[in-house]
């Protein structure tokens, strides 16, 4: 169990990065508390696996440090780090029984056989694998195999953190939920630091206390799921989290007026001041959940053309065109919504403004 800290940590596979674009992982600082459940969320190729491999020691970062409980681990070999990792697909020692698989990390560390027996049984009990202990590991189902991979990490008492690299990819949907519950249960019991890499926002948001969102080698935000939803620091977070993602409309300032395309948008004085103080490309962002229909001329509303209304069970998904852009709104299922001309209120207290894709006032 450990508190994990990154100091100016960055990695470029090419060795000599000329610009930030050359980094697989751009230099950053972060602290993960002992016993926390963290998720690394981002699309493929965003650098999350690179970061994971740096933590486990399979990859040496080209710059910066990794600290476990204040101790510098950057150059430490994988086997001395006390890290456990569960991979995307089950990694098993095929010729061994389930028991021997679970005992393998302990036996490699020359732990007395009596303790090995006790420890393996304890972990097998926790993971519901007791019945299968004598089975050959290769013959089991995918979820049982993933539990064995996880078990090999858990048997070691000294384990600092468990890393999960998209561990549910090969698991059937109905087993996914069960395994995730199991993970949460174990996290609760053992108070281990868990790091979970995924590109699935639902997985990340339900599993983790804190989610780290990454894109193009950059950590764009670390925060609790609510924060990512309500106050995305970066347009990428707004777009990546939520379904559908946040609406973005370019806006520009002309004196005291905020213009969205040809239309004038009336916004609160404080937000107007913040916009005036920032430079660069300005964008308004609002979640579909917060967009509302409004009477013509309402403050913060603009005129739009509703082109599509979809009933999706618990809500209605409305698509509207305004100033050549498409905006989505999620509205209550009881409302009667007609296609055609309508006013939409976009400037509200929940609305976020971005300058060059970064949230203003973060």
């Amino acid at each position, binding site marked *: 169990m450990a508190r994990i800290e990154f100091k100016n940590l960055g990695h470029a596979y090419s060795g000599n990065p000329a610009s930030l674009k050359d980094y697989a992982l751009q230099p950053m600082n972060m602290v993960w508390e002992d016993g926390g459940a963290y998720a690394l969320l981002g699309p493929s190729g965003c650098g999350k696996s690179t970061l994971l491999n740096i933590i*486990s*020691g*399979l990859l040496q970062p080209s710059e910066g440090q990794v600290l476990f409980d204040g101790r510098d681990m950057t150059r430490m*070999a*994988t*086997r001395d780090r006390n*890290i*456990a*990792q569960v*991979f*995307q*697909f089950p*990694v098993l*020692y*095929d*010729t*061994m*029984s389930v028991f*021997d698989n679970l005992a*393998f*990390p302990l036996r*490699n*560390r020359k732990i007395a056989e009596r303790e090995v027996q006790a420890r393996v049984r304890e972990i097998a009990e926790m993971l519901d694998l007791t019945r299968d202990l*004598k*089975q*050959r590991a*290769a*013959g089991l189902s995918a979820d049982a195999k993933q539990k064995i*991979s996880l078990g*090999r*990490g858990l048997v070691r008492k000294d384990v600092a953190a468990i890393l999960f690299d998209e561990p549910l990819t090969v698991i059937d949907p109905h087993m996914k939920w069960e395994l995730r519950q199991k993970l949460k249960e174990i996290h609760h019991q053992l108070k281990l630091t868990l790091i979970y890499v995924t590109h699935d926002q639902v997985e990340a948001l339900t599993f983790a206390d804190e989610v780290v969102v990454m894109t193009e080698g950059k950590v764009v935000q670390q925060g609790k799921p609510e924060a990512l939803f309500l106050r995305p620091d970066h347009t990428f977070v707004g777009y990546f989290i939520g379904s559908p993602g946040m609406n973005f409309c370019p806006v520009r300032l002309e004196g005291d007026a905020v213009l969205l395309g040809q239309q004038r948008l009336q916004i609160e004085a404080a937000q107007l001041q913040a916009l005036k103080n920032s430079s660069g490309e300005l964008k308004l962002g609002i979640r579909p959940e917060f967009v509302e229909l409004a009477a013509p001329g309402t403050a913060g509303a603009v005129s739009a053309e509703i082109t599509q209304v979809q009933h999706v069970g618990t809500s209605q998904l409305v698509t509207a065109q305004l100033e050549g852009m498409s905006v989505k709104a999620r509205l209550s299922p009881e409302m009667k919504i007609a296609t055609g001309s309508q006013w939409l209120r976009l400037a509200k207290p929940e609305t976020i403004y971005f300058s060059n894709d970064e949230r203003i006032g973060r």
Partner: protein
Amino acid sequence: MNKPYNNKAWFFILPVFLTVAFSAIIPLMTVVNYSVQDIISPEQKVFVGLDWFREVMRDGELHAALLRQLIFSFCVLLVQIPLGIGLALAMPHKGWKSSATLVILAMPLLIPWNVVGTIWQIFGRADIGLGGYVLNLLGIDYNYASNPLDAWLTVLVMDVWHWTPLVALLAFAGLRSIPDAYYQAAQIDGASRWAVFRFIQLPKMRGVLVIAVLLRFMDSFMIYTEPFVLTGGGPGNSTTFLSQYLTQKAVGQFDLGPAAAFSLIYFLIILLLSFVLYNWMQSAGNNANASGGQHE
């Protein structure tokens, strides 16, 4: 078991059956024909039952050749399989070095059998051959033309040189198909180099190794051209292996009956030993370290 039965399915194997019939069964039947008859001319044939088989079974020279053959194939497997695995493990994993090693390694495989025999025949000669000359220079009395042991070892070394690359290539292909995650997991689990080999590399190579063992066994059991060119079966009969003995019988002495009977026995021996080897290797993999385990 509730499997549907549909006899029309038999029609689907008809093309395969016909192909196999023409390529294997019908030619084999001619051999069977010869093995149970005394054929003096196409018009004069006498059915002799199993007489030829009895004659062959009592043939002392044949027994000697068979024993020689078994020892030879055993030695071939004993040397080539571990050596091939070792080569594959030692080879560079990627980049141009890997490709270059592969090409160099594969070179002996491209040389025709009789040329291999000729190369080693010259290489081993004490007067003009580099190998034979150097050995004698070092004070080793080496002469494959007069010393049976030298001849035997030369044939073995020649076969190792010729065919170990095949085992190495197969093993290398098996190694390359192991995902990196296995090695990473092994590092995390603190596995030693030996444990990585024993529990990851060897089990993952099992499939290709079964193929390698079978190919090398069958090929070495039928070895003909190289020893024929190198030693002509001598000195004495020391390197007369089964194929050569068979050829002597059929072509040299025109004993077609016994030769045909022996061919069938030869074929059955290869089939039986391959079957035994295959099953043994499969079960060795399945039962390793787990009792009462499930099959994949």
